[in-house]
């Protein structure tokens, strides 16, 4: 294939963070929120603040794994008319401007409907590094993985505290790029604390794979980021950024706020 995705850049980025004795900072933002261009600017601001990897959300009408903050942002994006072409443009422009690996995170139906072959080809051409598809379980994922691998895209699977050991092994054997460890049982959103479940899940996951393990769900500030960086290879933050954009009085204030938070989190993920 002429256009290969950036799975190797993703792996190299996570390896570099590890060599610097820190966890990688992975940020999530939905495309099209508050506008398509506004989301691109926000992603660039977060990268300028210190994010190593960015996940661009492809908004869905029925985000069953998202809490109120991301539901609201998805809703604004969809009412603004965001399309898959806009999501791909967001990936391309953010990647071209920053050189940082960009993943897409979404639900399965939009990709199933758009066509797996078409989506993987276009995401790779846009410079994307892979996808996180939280409602596509490993046993339904063979077709996706075939096309993703062909186009040089990572398939990042989610593991949960409820995942049994034998299932963890199946999931991590099928995944690539990194493993997304859900810190708790629940939907996206900020939480007061990140529980012990996350550390135990990372420990169990590491017994099954050499892939980096990044922790998401509930992490919103530098103190939590530091705590998670103590046992994980990456810290994933989403709702905290989205909430700052939702609460900002204007776009410039929002960009300044997310850049500042990224900076604090980037400090937090350093282990020394």
């Amino acid at each position, binding site marked *: 294939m002429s256009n290969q995705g950036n799975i190797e850049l993703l792996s190299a980025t996570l390896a570099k963070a590890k060599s610097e004795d820190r966890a990688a900072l992975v940020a999530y933002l939905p495309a099209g929120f508050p506008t398509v261009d506004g989301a691109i600017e926000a992603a660039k601001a977060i990268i300028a603040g210190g994010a190593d990897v960015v996940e661009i959300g492809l908004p*869905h009408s*029925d985000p*069953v*794994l998202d809490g109120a903050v991301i539901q609201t942002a998805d809703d604004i994006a969809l009412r603004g008319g965001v399309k898959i072409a806009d999501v791909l443009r967001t990936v391309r422009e953010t990647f071209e401007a920053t050189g940082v690996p960009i993943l897409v995170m979404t639900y*399965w139906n939009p990709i199933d*409907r758009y066509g797996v072959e078409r989506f993987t080809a276009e995401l790779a051409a846009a410079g994307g590094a892979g996808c996180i598809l939280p409602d596509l*379980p490993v046993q*339904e994922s063979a077709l996706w993985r075939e096309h993703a691998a062909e186009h040089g895209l990572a398939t990042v699977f989610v593991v949960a505290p409820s995942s*049994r050991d034998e299932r963890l092994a199946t999931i991590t054997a099928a995944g690539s790029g990194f493993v997304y460890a859900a810190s708790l049982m629940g939907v996206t959103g900020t939480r007061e604390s990140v529980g012990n479940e996350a550390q135990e899940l990372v420990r169990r996951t590491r017994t099954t794979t050499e892939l980096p393990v990044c922790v998401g769900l509930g992490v919103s500030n530098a103190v939590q980021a530091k705590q998670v960086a103590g046992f994980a290879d990456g810290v994933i933050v989403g709702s905290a950024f989205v909430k700052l954009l939702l609460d900002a009085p204007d776009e410039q204030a929002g960009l300044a706020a997310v850049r500042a938070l990224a900076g604090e989190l980037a400090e937090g993920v350093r282990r020394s």
Partner: protein
Amino acid sequence: MSTSSFFIPDPEGHVPNTEGYFGDFGGKFIPEALVAAVDEVAVEYEKAKGDPAFAAELNELMVNYTGRPSALTEVPRFAEHAGGARIFLKREDLNHTGSHKINNVLGQALLTKRMGKTRVIAETGAGQHGVATATACALFGLDCTIYMGEIDTQRQALNVARMRMLGAEVIAVKSGSRTLKDAINEAFRDWVANVEETHYLFGTVAGPHPFPAMVRDFHRVIGVEARRQILERAGRLPDAVAACVGGGSNAIGLFHAFIPDADVRLVGFEPAGHGVETGEHAATLTAGEPGILHGSRSYVLQDEEGQITEPYSISAGLDYPGIGPEHSYLKDTGRGEYRAVTDDAAMQALRLLSRTEGIIPAIESAHALAGALDLGKELGKDGLIVVNLSGRGDKDMDTAARYFGLYDGTDENGTEGENK
């Protein structure tokens, strides 16, 4: 009828494969956090199917609590408007709580106890599944939370009061189209966060495997009884069995026992709302395309980019952009036929049955009645149809009163005394 036959979990054929597929439809598209819980339901259900004590306990409840078997009522005055075909109604409206929903709820409530869980959540559209779930939770001493779209809490206010009277917490869901689809989204969010102690008592034959097959099995009694009853009463199998289809639970319950009877047509009636051509409808099999919603692959109403489109029906219980995967399979194999019925046709049928037979049906069931009027005309005088009267209409009296102007007596083509 022997009580040992109320729970019939091992039908011939139409068993999904080990991944939960009926042909191309079904499967298990769920987040990792729910995999262990959904697998636990599947394992526990398999064990329960083989346990005579489970069948005995469920049968006892079906007889002495629900009131099974439900009656089969011939409706000749109604059938005069259907070209003279004979029409029988399977009276699921006479079950305790007023609809077919109790069949599935009692089965899953027993399963909840077997799994040692203490809390139940459920979605509801018209409120019938919510009322049935709240009823079972009261009976078994389980905590109960019901998610209901905000629009539905308004148009089915009576059922909200019933659920609260029974001790359930009712949460009005304000996201999306604020109807059944969004209530299911919110119930899934609750389940992910509280799965340790909570069972999601799913109310229709959709969702991830094993729900489509399990909920179907608990409702299969409808068709098994109806088949036996119509043979006794009419001396032959019907030409068609008919039911309304939202998610499809009452329809599959009636259809399933007739699937091996190749000469019996299985006809489902979907909500056409203001008309399929207007775009304001919930006719998933008529106008949808295969996709993934709420954990399985089936027909869904969606746009070209896979966003689920907002459905519309006057009937809260049918106002859903998805459909159970077994119905999608029946459609694609041609064994099932699916047609769409407008709000207006359903409301006229609701009034017609009320005034010709003294039975006020739910608006959901009225879609099947309206469809049966046309089906009867097509079949002619020798036709024989069994219609599933899936629920009673008490909950819909406010909607009907506004529709027909009953509060101020401005009903344009019918007043008191017009029972002809």
